């Protein structure tokens, strides 16, 4: 694993909540352009890892290097500008807004926010809105063409699987370099999960240089979509490698897969 390959690297990343050590000196590398699966039993620190990476929690100790710059104590906003976005395990869309509004939130940093521009330069604003709507439609088209036609409808009427899709699109609207997907299949049927993973693979094909970290409990999904896996246990890296390697590791089988 040579240094220039790593888009993201953490060194000794630690996060404690009082006496609970959620991340215990995690050293982890994410390579440029890969789809990395992050697995581990409940409470092993996967979501905490995402929360620390995106600046929602500050690490107690340790370092986060993203494309060479330290992001360990950066704000969520700065981390977004640096090119990391995420989805949430429990959908955090704004349900009373339209699909378009939610996607525009994802595109926030590329949009013009001055009072003068927004109130008085309405023609320029309309052009920017058109461009944003076109980009949003194009993204939705990858996932679910009918969804693209419902751009200005409220989120409330959108089915669960489509909400996940919108959430992934919202993250993509920010043109990230690293996309963190926190268990996108949570609460879905096997069939829906398969369809969503097809979408994620399609996104990878379209955005060749996008790096993705995927938290997932469904082993068949991990096997199918990831290039590499990291197994966490008690906030530490238990092992890493391809799914075949990881699932053959006796320690992983003991700790997580419940096999003997």
């Amino acid at each position, binding site marked *: 694993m040579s240094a220039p390959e790593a888009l993201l690297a953490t060194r000794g990343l630690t996060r404690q909540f009082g006496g609970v050590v959620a991340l215990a000196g995690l050293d982890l590398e994410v390579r440029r352009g890969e789809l990395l699966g992050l697995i581990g039993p409940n409470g092993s620190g996967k979501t905490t890892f995402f929360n620390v990476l*995106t600046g929602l929690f500050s690490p107690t100790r340790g370092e986060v290097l993203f494309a060479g710059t330290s992001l360990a104590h950066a704000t*969520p906003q700065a981390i977004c500008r640096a090119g990391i976005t995420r989805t949430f395990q429990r959908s955090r869309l704004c349900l009373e*807004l339209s699909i378009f509004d939610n996607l525009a*939130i994802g595109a926030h940093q590329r949009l013009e*926010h001055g009072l003068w521009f927004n*109130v008085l330069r*309405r023609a320029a604003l309309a052009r920017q809105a058109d461009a944003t*709507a076109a980009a949003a439609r194009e993204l939705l088209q990858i996932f679910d063409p009918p969804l693209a036609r419902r751009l200005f409808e409220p989120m409330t009427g959108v089915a669960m699987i489509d909400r996940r899709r919108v959430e992934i699109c919202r993250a993509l609207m920010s043109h990230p370099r690293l996309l963190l997907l926190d268990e996108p299949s949570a609460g879905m049927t096997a069939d829906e999960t398969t369809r969503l993973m097809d979408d994620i693979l399609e996104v990878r094909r379209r955005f060749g240089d996008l790096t993705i970290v995927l938290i997932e409990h469904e082993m068949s999904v991990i096997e199918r979509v990831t290039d590499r896996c990291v197994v966490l246990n008690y906030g530490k890296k238990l092992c890493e490698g391809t799914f075949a390697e990881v699932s053959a590791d006796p320690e992983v089988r003991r700790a997580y897969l419940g096999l003997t």
Partner: protein
Amino acid sequence: MSLRRAGASVLSTAAIAAVTGLLLYAFLAAESERTVGLVLVGAVAAVAAGLRSRVLPRLVGAAGPPAVLVGLGVAGLVLVRVFHDDPFVLLLMARALLVLVACLGLHVQLADAGVPNFAGAAFFGVGGYTAAVLGRGGLPHPLVLLASGAAAAAVGSLLLLPLLRTRGHYAALITIAFGLLFRTFLEVNETLGGPQGLKLGGLQLLGWSFNDDRRLLGVEFSGYAFYCLAAVALALAAVWLVRRVERSWIGVALDAVRLDETAAACFGISIGRWKIAALTIGNALIGVAGGLSAMMVGFIAPNNFTFQESLVLVSILLLGGLGNLAGLAAAALIVIWLPEKLQPIQEYRYLLFSVLVVLVLVLRPTGLIRRSVRRPFGSVAG
């Protein structure tokens, strides 16, 4: 725009303006309490029927909201002409419009950014006192009004630090505390007149005193008619501004901050920046309204800016429905006019408003008119 669509727009606008104008006229001209009640019930029924049958939204859609604003402005002018020599009605109209402007400020804060402000009357007062102090100097009065807004925004910035560190009930408590402090400050401050308050000269515009009655086009206008026109202009400008802010990236960002700070932060939206923006815009609107109101009434005292008055402003917001300007305007008219027209309830108005707000929150938490999803503001979508 095709000729047909233009024609439909003009007709729809005229219909909306005419019906609104007639209802307002009937209400303002009503003498007996029974007529007032009947008009109110009729208006509520008409609006409910219009909304239920989708006729009203379709009319508004065909007219186009900017045309509706112009139409309502014209209706306002006609009403001023009709009540040209009735200071009581004119004062009532102007007051409701200025309260509406203040509520638009609160709307940006609470309904858009989710920042509660229970010190609306205090910021209204900051505007009023600024107008009283600066109005004596030689500063042109339009600038005095702008200064009233700026002063309210500046005083509001004292609250930024605590407001950015809290949310929900705690933020509300901070604004309540500020409102109480402000009133106490006024009462002990000798230069601002203490409990007795201050007198103000009327609004002067290009050498024209708004306080004087005046003959125009062969009609004798009460001085309040001109304040009423100024209030109509200010209210239209405020609605225009707030609508544009809400239908823009700013509105999207404020919604994101209100609905989910965590997700908003993860997409680069600065929570602090947008709360500050909403507070500043809102307080500036409240301050300008307060300044003009003080000039119109000619006298201000700490007693005008109590916590109760702040609560009236918030109750208008809740009654109208957070996120809907038409509902807000209707609520402002009801809350300001009803006690004046129904003398028997004058005494109990705070009690009645409290009951009304509780009923609305229990039976119809969305207010008179529900928040609708943001209409697209791109050129393709219209």
